[in-house]
């Protein structure tokens, strides 16, 4: 049910990982920052993929949890001092999880197009709440003047101010997210949410209280979106209400479409393609005046990609590298 990468896909993934790990050694801070964004957005897309690709819940408001955790870091950062990663990160993720629990408890009761609409509606409510309340710094956003540090007692072990260190921290978070989600998908819980995606009615008839499983999935996804949002806020030390907006939610869906739904690691390829192409389309040297309207180019690119690679980059990769993943059956025999 979960498409685990086969040996050759793992090889490709390791190559990509090695390529990503070598970015800091290029010594170009622009590309380092770009790669950091790719990785953080890949975590964000991956968290949404748990809902879209594995639970069958197409959330159009996933940025709410991303943005709230970003604001979590901003609110927890003292003005002239660094927040402690050990406190700020779990607290920001917990904030995202709590709001996902409250929103999820309501929206998970709906299905299909209604689910899309109510997730969007709740996210927009949170967006306006953040934009219009003085507490969050208003529509102009707010700064995090000092990046968070990892501090135990009085000893600072590591600061996110260190670009390379921060980059590798994000890369570790990405690998951690992927591995943890794979573990979850292979667990009894994972089997249940995949069953819900396939045929929720039958799952209920088989004795599963599907509401509770969908809600749990929604909260897990929101929590990892929170991880991504927290890291995203630390990239520039700046948060704005747009982080919660529907654009941000839509971008994550596009990354999943580009990467290929149903593989989890596809989100990484989706993020690379999305951020990479955005950067290329904004290049005036290549596209001239069209670069100012890069969204048009992006639109054409996404349409072309979806038409040509129906199952996304990952789907193409899995086919290209050979047979599909082992099923539960085959894994049993192994």
């Amino acid at each position, binding site marked *: 049910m979960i498409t685990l990468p086969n040996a050759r896909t793992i090889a490709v993934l390791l190559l990509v990982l090695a390529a990503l790990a070598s970015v800091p050694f290029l010594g170009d801070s622009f590309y380092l920052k770009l790669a950091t964004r790719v990785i953080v957005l890949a975590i964000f897309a991956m968290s949404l993929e748990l809902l879209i690709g594995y639970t069958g819940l197409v959330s159009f408001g996933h940025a709410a949890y991303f943005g709230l955790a970003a604001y979590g870091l901003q609110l927890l950062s003292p003005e002239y001092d660094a927040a402690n990663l050990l406190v700020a990160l779990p607290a920001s993720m917990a904030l995202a999880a709590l709001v996902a629990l409250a929103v999820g408890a309501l929206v998970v009761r709906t299905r299909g197009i209604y689910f899309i609409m109510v997730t969007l509606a709740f996210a927009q409510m949170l967006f306006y709440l953040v934009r219009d309340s003085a507490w969050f710094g208003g529509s102009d956003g707010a700064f995090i003047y000092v990046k968070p540090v990892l501090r135990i007692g009085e000893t600072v072990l590591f600061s996110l101010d260190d670009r390379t260190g921060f980059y590798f921290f994000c890369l570790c978070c990405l690998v951690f997210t992927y591995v943890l989600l794979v573990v979850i998908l292979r667990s009894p819980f994972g089997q249940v949410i995949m069953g819900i995606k*396939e*045929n929720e009615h039958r799952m209920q008839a088989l*004795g599963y209280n599907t509401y509770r*499983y969908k809600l749990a999935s929604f909260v897990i996804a929101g929590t990892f979106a929170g991880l991504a949002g927290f890291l995203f806020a630390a990239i520039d030390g700046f948060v704005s209400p747009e982080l919660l907006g529907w654009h941000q939610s839509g971008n994550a869906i596009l990354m999943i479409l580009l990467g290929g739904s149903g593989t989890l690691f596809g989100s990484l390829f989706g993020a690379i393609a999305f951020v990479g192409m955005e950067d290329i389309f904004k290049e005036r040297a290549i596209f001239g005046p069209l670069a100012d309207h890069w969204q048009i180019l992006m639109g054409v690119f996404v349409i072309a990609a979806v038409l040509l690679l129906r199952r996304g980059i990952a789907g193409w990769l899995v086919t290209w590298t050979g047979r599909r993943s082992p099923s539960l059956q085959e894994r049993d025999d192994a």
Partner: protein
Amino acid sequence: MREPLLETLELTRRFGGLAAVKSVSIAFAPGEVHAVIGPNGAGKTTLINLLSGDLPPTSGRILFKGQEIAGRPAHSISHLGIGRSYQKTNIFLNFTTRQNCWLAAQSRLPTSFRFFSPAHRRQDVAARADKALALTGLEARAGRLAKEMSHGEQRQLEIAMMLATEPELLLLDEPMAGMGAEESERTVELIRKLAADHTVVLIEHDMDAVFKLADRLTVMVNGEVLETGTPESIRTSPAVREAYLGEEEALS
């Protein structure tokens, strides 16, 4: 009759102005195969949907072991030991046969809120799934995607999934629907085997199969119970002949 395992009292379900099931009272005795027959539109499937919790009743009671279950959600009724199969095949088409049974078998874990242990290492679940596959003769098809199987095999899988939840009472909604003669015969044998240690509520259009299997029959017409009795008494009932069987000679 012994204390019924399942009993409906004045059970009614309306869809708008239409009463699909009209104050139906039936007692299902433990250990029996109780068939519910009737022409199309008689309300048989609606009755099953009420019993399994797929639909809430408009009024009336459903007692399982003396306990009120009317209005309970399907997942909760399933855990009381009531399993059902669907007339319209309702399986996980993109999963293999074994994964279909696996999900059914896993539903009997106290909870599936286990996030970190690999599912496929659960020997107890695997044993339940394998037993259901063996009973229905689908072992050789275990690795097949459900959507790639023949209609008859999908019907068997429908039953296998129900069995993997280890129910005490089986609600079978036209298990032979769309099957060929040979497949039907095999399914009759299977139900006979299951009847040895299960209570069965059977809805079926195939009268041969019904009369081979049923210990008791209820005839429904227009949402109401016309008559309940032994196969013999139903076969000879003038009211049943007139209302439902008509001139049919298949029964004589």
